């Protein structure tokens, strides 16, 4: 579908939520509706893809549970922003692109890195600040990079990755490749100028960037309704005449499908898309968040729509996976995570000499005497 086929505003497939996106907002669809929709999507996919998606989601979840444990044990320093609850977004979207496509995201990035193909070992080692980490221990939780897998960070100024991703996509068009770029950010980034400046340029110059707003409804401790005058994020696309969709972010297959549609537009016609993906973070903003800005009941209500629970139920009910196969995947994931922790623990710290490397690609020695 091309942008020419969209409405006059450029907004397509717009499904407005029934209530405002905010602390006590009702889900975009009921759990029953979500499950029914997911099952119909599931029927269109091969078993291998479904298992792979489930495996990735579970891996992301267990990986972060282990990271939280390591953080509490003092093995991970600084900030550690967990993604638990949002897995359907990164895994669904990244399952829709190729290995040579690009991903940029914010500081809540462990799942995106793993989904893009990076090894749990290199991600965990980075969290542990080890030399074997994906950024050699210089980036940490917020700055994961892997050139080989097209994972371009890991950016920790809210919204900072949005112009960068626009530039990466610009370069694909400049070079005449058909690579696309996925740019993930939270809904709080939508209030930054960087978001608006980027979407304007992206549609003006037609660059193949897919902007995926992970609306988890809180910017740290501030709910969307306390921070945004107009709560309908996908509708902000009207201002830039950019194609947009609203997606239920608790349905991994819905996210995948919407991303596939956007990818097609991007690959064929160099057109950008804005996806608003409604999700929810089950944990605090970071490991140090006491979480007193929302109620336990609210979190529990969203946990009923846990994207992994919903997807595993669909897989089970549709007969894709048997109980023993679920157990097998759980065991595989456990082993992967344990292996990652062991690797991180046993890896060396960066050599002290590394303090002064990687500052410049072409260092200039002015100390000639």
């Amino acid at each position, binding site marked *: 579908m091309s942008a020419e086929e969209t409405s006059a505003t450029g907004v397509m497939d717009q499904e407005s939520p029934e209530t405002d996106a905010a602390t006590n907002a009702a889900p975009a669809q009921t759990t029953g509706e979500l499950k029914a929709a997911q099952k119909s999507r599931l029927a269109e996919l091969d078993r291998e893809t479904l298992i792979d998606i489930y495996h990735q989601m579970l891996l992301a979840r267990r990986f972060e549970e282990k990271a939280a444990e390591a953080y509490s044990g003092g093995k991970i320093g600084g900030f550690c922003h967990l993604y638990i609850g949002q897995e359907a977004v990164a895994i669904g979207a990244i399952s829709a692109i190729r290995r040579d496509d690009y991903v940029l995201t914010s500081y809540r990035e462990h799942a995106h890195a793993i989904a893009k193909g990076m090894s749990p070992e290199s991600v965990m080692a980075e969290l542990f600040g080890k030399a074997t980490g994906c950024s050699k221990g210089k980036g940490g939780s917020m700055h994961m990079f892997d050139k080989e897998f097209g994972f371009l960070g890991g950016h920790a100024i809210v919204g900072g990755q949005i112009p960068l991703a626009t*530039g990466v996509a610009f370069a694909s068009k400049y070079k005449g490749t058909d690579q696309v770029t996925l740019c993930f950010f939270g809904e709080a980034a939508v209030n930054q100028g960087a978001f608006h400046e980027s979407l304007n340029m992206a549609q003006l110059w037609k660059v193949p960037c897919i902007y995926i707003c992970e609306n988890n409804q809180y910017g740290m401790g501030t709910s969307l309704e306390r921070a945004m005058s107009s709560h309908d994020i996908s509708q902000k696309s009207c201002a830039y005449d950019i194609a947009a969709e609203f997606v239920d972010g608790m349905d991994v297959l819905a996210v995948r499908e919407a991303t596939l549609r956007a990818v097609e537009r991007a690959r064929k016609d160099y057109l950008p898309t804005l996806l608003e993906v409604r999700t929810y973070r089950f944990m605090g903003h970071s490991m140090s968040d006491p979480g007193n800005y929302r109620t336990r009941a609210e979190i529990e209500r969203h946990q009923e729509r846990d994207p992994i629970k919903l997807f595993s139920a669909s897989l089970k009910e549709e007969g894709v996976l048997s109980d023993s196969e679920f157990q097998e995947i759980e065991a595989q994931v456990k082993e992967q995570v344990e292996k990652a922790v062991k690797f991180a623990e046993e890896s060396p710290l960066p050599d002290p000499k590394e303090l002064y490397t990687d500052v410049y690609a072409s260092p200039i020695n002015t100390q000639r005497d």
Partner: protein
Amino acid sequence: MAVVTIREALNQALREEMQRDENVFLMGEEVAEYQGAYKVTKGLLQELGAKRVIDTPITELGFAGLGVGAAMVGLRPIVEFMTFNFSILATDQIINSAAKMLYMSGGQFNIPIVFRGPGGSAYQVSSQHSQALESWFAYFPGLKVVMPSTPADAKGLLKASIRDDDPVIFIEQERMYGIKGEVSDDPDFVIPLGVADIKREGTDATIVARSLMVPVALKAADVLQKEGVSCEVIDPRTIRPLDIETIIKSVKKTNRVVIAEESHPFCGVAAEIGSEINERAFDYLDAPVKRVSGADVPMPYAKNLEDLAVPTVDQIVAAVREVAYLE
């Protein structure tokens, strides 16, 4: 060799480097159809096409970040700020993205980008359009900062900056675009970054000057020569990394030093150079290091007040006399 203006020398550098490497592209406000607000990019759109020479919306943070992103995957953007005053809006992307990307990615993503445009004082455009920002950018490891003062330096240094694999802040002086001088037409004429130039040799005092202060310091040296004081004028050309060795060598010879700059004195580049001299050559000094800086005020509009805010030949002459104990 031909005699051209700094404006023309920069234009030649841009044209030659864009012809040399198709991954180099130029973007900024009014760089294409308008031919550049200061005409530095004149003719480039016609010669190189709209794919390579791109007019941007007025969206400095956005296009600076877009440039950094493009540089992450192999392009070599030249981002023009109509003036460096507007780069202030883009500093998040320059500092948090361009300067730090290589380091925080563990050496995986270098950013070969040039941010260029006019900076420093202009003529009667008041506080927001007339300021020197080099000390801001020079503060950050990961950035290189270049400030040419002659047509030859402008061309050779800009070509080197475009070929460099790191982010370069290239500050042209707004008042100096019309200055003329001899410039090589060899397409491989480049001046390496990080090398100071001795603009005038002397024995009695060293004047360290950059950008607009270079011609002012050279005039001061002429005045002082008539009084029998021989001044050496050193132009660092690259602020970061700074060729401190050339400065120290000169100070060890002359034992007296004045550092001239049009920027504010507080936390400025002259303060840094002075500190380096004190650490490395204190025993060679016959007088304290003396700074001549721009007034520590926002730039005023009124002509008489503006003239008082920018260092003059007389101020530099007086400073040299002071360190030479001739007052």
